[in-house]
């Protein structure tokens, strides 16, 4: 842990609701303390230097996905980024690109996620009638359950979307997050949908065939989800529908 450094935070500032306001970078100085994270630093800046600074944190523990932002050029979760990680004492903070800007570092990932969930119907579509909740549950292969959990660990932070060149060029592209969720339901034996059904929502340029395989999603995913593997898998599935 480094101590005694004075850090300079270069922070993107823009209030889209303030008439006449223009985007700009503003610098703030702060003494680094042991164990300081970007969460701690931003809160101190707001409390002590600029009470108008906007940013989002909820769990501050890397669990909820609220605080994704671009830190020194890479999108990641701010809450678990230790300032000591950066050898230089300059830290530049930008909001995630590709989402509606609320102000400064705060973006509306929630609105995007709800829209994509509705568009791709990202919920379990059960086979037949629901199981009676008063009797013994239907067994499930333990390995399948474990695999499902592996794909379900996405926290909807938006990093994959902001790191995706296709998404940045074409707003209608569903992005890694939507594809990962489709893959999760495709794998689930309880889900009634077939590859054919999924083809209708992702078997096109806005879905798996639009991906340029630049790996931005997988390289930056804070949960280390296997995005490329799932996209490749879905592509093979979708191609088999065509044959």
């Amino acid at each position, binding site marked *: 842990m480094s101590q005694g450094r004075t850090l300079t935070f270069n922070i993107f500032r823009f209030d889209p609701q303030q008439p006449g306001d223009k985007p700009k970078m503003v610098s703030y100085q702060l003494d680094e303390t042991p164990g300081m994270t970007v969460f701690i630093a931003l809160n101190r800046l707001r409390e002590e230097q600029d*009470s108008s600074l906007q940013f989002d944190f909820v769990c501050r523990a890397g669990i909820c996905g609220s605080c994704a932002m671009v830190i020194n050029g890479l999108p990641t979760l701010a809450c678990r980024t230790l300032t000591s990680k950066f050898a230089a004492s300059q830290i530049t903070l930008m909001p995630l690109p590709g989402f509606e800007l609320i102000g400064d570092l705060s973006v509306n990932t929630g609105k995007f996620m709800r829209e994509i969930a509705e568009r791709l119907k990202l919920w379990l579509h059960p086979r037949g009638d629901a199981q009676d909740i008063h009797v013994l549950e239907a067994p499930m292969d333990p390995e399948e359950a474990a695999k499902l959990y592996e794909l379900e660990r996405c926290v909807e932070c938006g990093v994959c979307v902001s790191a995706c060149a296709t998404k940045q060029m074409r707003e209608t592209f569903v992005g890694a997050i939507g594809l990962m969720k489709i893959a999760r339901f495709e794998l689930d034996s309880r889900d009634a949908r077939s590859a054919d059904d999924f083809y209708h929502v992702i078997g096109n340029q806005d879905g798996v065939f639009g991906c340029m395989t630049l790996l931005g999603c997988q390289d930056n995913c804070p949960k280390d989800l296997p995005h490329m593997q799932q996209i490749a898998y879905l592509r093979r599935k979708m191609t088999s529908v065509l044959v």
Partner: protein
Amino acid sequence: MKIIYTDSLVVGAGLAGLRVAIASKERGLDTLVLSLIPAKRSHSAAAQGGMQASLGNTVKGMGDNEDVHFQDTVKGSDWGCDQHVARMFAHCAPKAVRELANWGVPWTRVTQGPREVVVNAEKVTIDEAEAAHGLINARDFGGTKKWRTCYTADGTGHSLLYAVDNKAIAMGIAVHERMEALKIIHDGKRCHGVIARCLITGELRAYIAKSTTIATGGYGRIYEVSTNAIICEGIGQALALETGVATLGNMEAVQFHPTAIVPVGILTTEGCRGDGGLLRDVDGHRFMPDYEPEKKELASRDVVSRRMTEHMRKGKGVDSPYGPHLWLDITLLGREHIETNLREVQEICEYFLGIDPAVDWIPVRPTQHYSMGGIRTNATGESPQLQGLFSVGEAACWDMHGFNRLGGNSLAETVVGGMIIGKYVADFGENNDLVVNTSLVEQAMGELRTEIESLIDGNGTENPYVLKREMQRIMMDYVGIFRNGPELDKAVAGLKSLLERSRNLVVKNKKRHANPELVEALRVRRMIKVALTVACGAAARTESRGAHAREDFPQRNDKDWLKRTLCRWPEANALEPEIHYEDLDVMQMELPPGYRGYGVDNAIPHPDTAIREAEIAVKLAALGEHADRYDQQQVLMSFDLPQELMPKNERLIDKISAQLGDKNS
């Protein structure tokens, strides 16, 4: 004035709120949810360990049922809970787990055959039955007789929240995100909705509804160091308190979790100890068996937290720049187990501490964790004072936790409570009209608008961040794990002075729309009121029960204190709440107060306990020896539930005995 009308309004989009919303929507009621943040970011997502339900699928869960779960919960509560509610809860928990499987939760499942686990620091092989293969698994947690905590690796809250929110999206339930409810609209008898402020545009809106359900979680952030998400600030409780009519229950019952990492207070799940992790001191000594030879690391949370604090007070803590701490050692579980079942813990260790928990011990200490107190409701989840105001989950004092909550019972309460109370909320919506009284709405909105104007344009001098920090420090220093009269008096005096100062707040940032400082200012004076209910309740309760431990009154005093604390704030300008009490009736209890199983039995008995015990013996004898456990339970304490939830829960053992019965016949 913008008014939005709905049948069922839910404030808070965590598991409890969403589950109530689903129950309303299922009955065809127009349903609307308000949330500070996107629903999937709610604090429910942070629950790692799991949810208790007596499925009894595993070898270590065999013999488990509603009775055992009920008894564990009542003992865990230190007899402070409402036993009817605990019964309703234990009965419905298996149903909720199975329902969640229907909605897509990938519960960790049982694999048949032998597997190695760590029990009491030793590797033990357990052999799962063939018939259990693929059924829902359970792990061990503190204070439970059986392995009962159902889980998905260590991301149970995440899995549950995503499944339940997906269900809500599938049903088309509207969630108004980034909306903060700041005032309840009421006429002193009936609740009509809330006034809320949009955190993006600053717009004030009235939401008028038949029923209003507060599901805003706990109030952990009135403390300086807490495992809670930073949005768990007790605003839901403050909303109820500020009606001047509704009461809060048992606000002094605040739980400290034994194993949050130092210094930031992020939680490592109880699953660490449940799976076999140990607590060690500065010498590497495993000290818990010295204090609690039977339950060791898996004693109830309040007990473990106090033993850790005692041990550190003896000088056995590890010194650090942030004060003393102890070690949590999960190295003996092995890398494979940690990387699959405790991966969130591993990530937290890696990112916040720079250590590898498969090799290194984790620095931990007890940290504020859970609010047993909350908006007082009756068994149907409704405020006894304000008709149409419901509360559920950690926000509520439905009171299945009493003075201490067992691990795995909070996640369970969100969905089980939501399932049960949701039906009562829907009943209310079907049986009541929407009442629209625009002058009442205008009055409530006017009050909020005036408050905001005075914060922006007034000539106050106090800084909201400064007041908040002082409040948090007072709570940490004087209303912590161990409490005593002189310190609690200091806390009450300090908080009263802060409340006075909070009437003189001002913000530097004058924006009326997105303005984080204004948000803070609106919250902090409400938080100070909530803090006062905790401190005043703790000062008045001269006994020790569950998480409320008085050094000057170490005995659990059933004779004088088998009662629930109720706080009201009838005079808006008063500096402290009005406190009164409601008795817990021993003669109605299925399980009269007894020894909880930790340390010395120093309870001062209630005079009714012996009478009730004798009565129970007579009732059971009258039933005869052939009566089954359902009949016995019914005779001792019958409880009500919505009809659809009344059927018995089938278990693996029932199925096996039925098959054996078939063969025999």
